[in-house]
Each structure stands twice: as structure tokens, then as C-alpha cells.
């Protein structure tokens, strides 16, 4: 058995939709369990009072990274078959900023908005309407921004390619970065709680 399963023909296009559905349900379930159906909790990370989002996301990144690394190193997964989103540096920075602004203002990112809707949050429903309006608007405006959208393309970049450092060393560095981030996040949360208590 070799991963990625789809690329190795373990199941076809039709069954892949079922698999995607189940993975999506699982993703939503754990977002909800982390408390990400509440816009208050999500927006709190931008005020450093509750960094759960940061901690959950970085935990997911580290878990996935270690899993992918070790499965590939042990030979049960072909990493070269895993799709990487190509880098378009400037458009992606701008896109990240737009998403960030939307996140702070609306209190949800796209995935958590769906979780919010599933748990009956009206604000999330409004945000989802805006999200689809944005998608339609983007597509309608695409001919105008296509040039920018495809600018500063670097292809599929990975950290080992960019830094020239060994893959395993970067894995360890990201783990340390995450743990340092967690410690910093807890310290920040305590500080903000203390400040709140003072006021």
C-alpha cells in the first residue's frame, strides 16, 4: 500500500469525492471541538487574548509535517506525488492580507465560517454570503487582474529548495519553532489576562 492513495489508483474519481466528504466532515468536527465556531474566540487571537487558533493550526502543521516526513522516509509514501501550490509571491502576500483583514473584521476564515454555519451562527451565515459574493466578484474581475494574479511566479517551492538545508534539519527547526511559538503564546495569554485583571 502506497500513499498518496488516489495517485496510486487505490480508488477512482467517484470514490475520491466520498473520501473528500469524509475528510471534510472530520476537519469540520475538529475545528468545532477546538471552539472555532465562535467568531469571538477566533478574533481574540488578533488581540493576543486567546491564541488557540495559532496553537491548533501550528499543531496540525507539525503533526502533518512529521507524518509526511516519516511516512516518506519509511517508504510508504511518495512525496513527489503530493501536490504543492505554486508560489506567486506578491499576489499571495496581497491575498494573505485581504484574507487577514476579512478574518479580523468578520471573525471567521472560510473553513471556520462553514463550521459556524453548521452550528447555527447567524454571523457566519452572513459571512458565507459575503464569501460567495467575493468569489463571484473575483471571477468576474479575473480578466482585469489576471496579469497581476500570475506575476512573480516561482513554481512549486519548498523550504529545502529555498534554503539549501537538509530536509530533516528543517523538520526539526519547524518543530522547535512551533514549540517556541506555543510557549510564547501561553506567556502572551497570561500577560493579557493579567493586564485585563488590572484594568
Amino acid at each position: 500500500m502506497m500513499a498518496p492513495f488516489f495517485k496510486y489508483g487505490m480508488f477512482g474519481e467517484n470514490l475520491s469525492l466520498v473520501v473528500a466528504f469524509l475528510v471534510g466532515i472530520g476537519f469540520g468536527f475538529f475545528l468545532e471541538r477546538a471552539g472555532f465556531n465562535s467568531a469571538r474566540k477566533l478574533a481574540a487571537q488578533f488581540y493576543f487574548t486567546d491564541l488557540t487558533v495559532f496553537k491548533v493550526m501550528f499543531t496540525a502543521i507539525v503533526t502533518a509535517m512529521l507524518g509526511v516526513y516519516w511516512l516518506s522516509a519509511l517508504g510508504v509514501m511518495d512525496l513527489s506525488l503530493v501536490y504543492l501550490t505554486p508560489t506567486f509571491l506578491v499576489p499571495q502576500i496581497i491575498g494573505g492580507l485581504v484574507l487577514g483583514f476579512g478574518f479580523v473584521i468578520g471573525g471567521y476564515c472560510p473553513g471556520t465560517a462553514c463550521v459556524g454555519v453548521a452550528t447555527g451562527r447567524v454571523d457566519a451565515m452572513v459571512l458565507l454570503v459575503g464569501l460567495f459574493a467575493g468569489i463571484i466578484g473575483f471571477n468576474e474581475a479575473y480578466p482585469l487582474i489576471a496579469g497581476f494574479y500570475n506575476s512573480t511566479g516561482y513554481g512549486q517551492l519548498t523550504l529545502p529548495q529555498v534554503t539549501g538545508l537538509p530536509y530533516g534539519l528543517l523538520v526539526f527547526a519547524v518543530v522547535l519553532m512551533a514549540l517556541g511559538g506555543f510557549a510564547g503564546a501561553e506567556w502572551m495569554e497570561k500577560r493579557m489576562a493579567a493586564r485585563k485583571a488590572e484594568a
Partner: protein
Amino acid sequence: MVDFIRNLSPNRRLALVAVVLGLLAVVGPNPYRGAAASVNTKEAAIQMARGTDQVGVTELADWIVQGRADFRVVDLRPATAYAEYHIPPAENIPVAGLAESSLSRNEKVVLYAEDGARAAQAWMLLKARGYRGVYILRGGLEAWKDSVLFPRIPENATPAQTVEFAKMREVSRYFGGTPQAAPGDSAAAVPVAALPKLSMPVAKAAPAGAKKKKKEGC
């Protein structure tokens, strides 16, 4: 040590696991295998012995005539030879370019070159990289010319062979070939048959060649 771990909170225990796995990764191998690959020699040997690693030229001709789209044909010869003539739906991928090609591991791929050797080499390379549905065109392009483009009825043909030849005549015409008459039949002898023009068969059947690359991502 045991007490130290026992006293850690679950979060810290998981963090410790992450650190250990990360630390081991420093001395671990590169997860990208690069050009090195391994082949299941037993499985490959069984396929070779049974002949299930090959597809006959008439079988391939049938697939193309039927308009089946569940396979891809790869011409391994140099681009100039490919331009001169190739089996209608074939795409030109030289052996050196196989690793970067758009072939996927769950597709049925039929390989051919002038004769069997080059195709067999490519078959091994692809097998080693985990491509499962790879086949060699038995006899290569030479067999394609002999049996499909310019079929010849054997002398003293049995009735079954005559029936087979009648069918192959149709197939041959489909691909723009010239069926050869029996050696004794001097009336319709065509000494040197010309290779068919490319435009005709190409236009007629092009099943899987131009498969759209799917866009992935979130």
C-alpha cells in the same frame, strides 16, 4: 526518566514526541527519493513469464478502432522518427523524459519503440517508479507495420487464417495501410508499401492524448 515523563501533562508529552521525531529527522533520510527507485523483481518476473507485461499489435489496433480512451500510447523513439510516422494516438516521450512526463501511475500505458528492447527498458524504469499499468507493444513498431499496416496472408492459409486476414484488411485500411496479397498472387503485389500519411489516422482517433491536467489544491 520514567517519572519525569509520567509527571508531564498530555500536551507536554505530545510536544516531547514531536521533539524526538524532529530530532531523529535530522539524521533521517531525505524523503524525496529522487532518481533512485526499487522494483519488485518477483512481481516483474512473473509478469514477464506470463506475458502480461505485453500487448499485441492487433489487440492495440482493436482498442484504437473501438475508440477506447482508457489507455495511452507512448512512442519512445526520437522526435524525428515520431514525426515521420507513429501509431495514431501515440504521444512522443523519449526515455529520458519519462520521469517528468504527465503519465500517471494508475493509467494503462502502452510503450513502443522500433523494436522490443528500448520499450522493455522503459517498462522497467516505469515499473520501478510505481507505475502499475505499463505494457510493452509486442514486437514494437516493426510488428505494427507487419501485422496491422501491411498484413500478409500466409501461403496455404487455413480457413481461420483467411477469415483473420479479411478482418485485418479492414483494420489495415482504417490505419491507412496497404494489405499485401498472398505471395503467389502476382496480380495485386505491391513491392514496397509506403507508410501511410499521418494526417488521416491522427484525425480519426485521438482518445487520451490531450488529457487535461487537473488543477489541484485547496
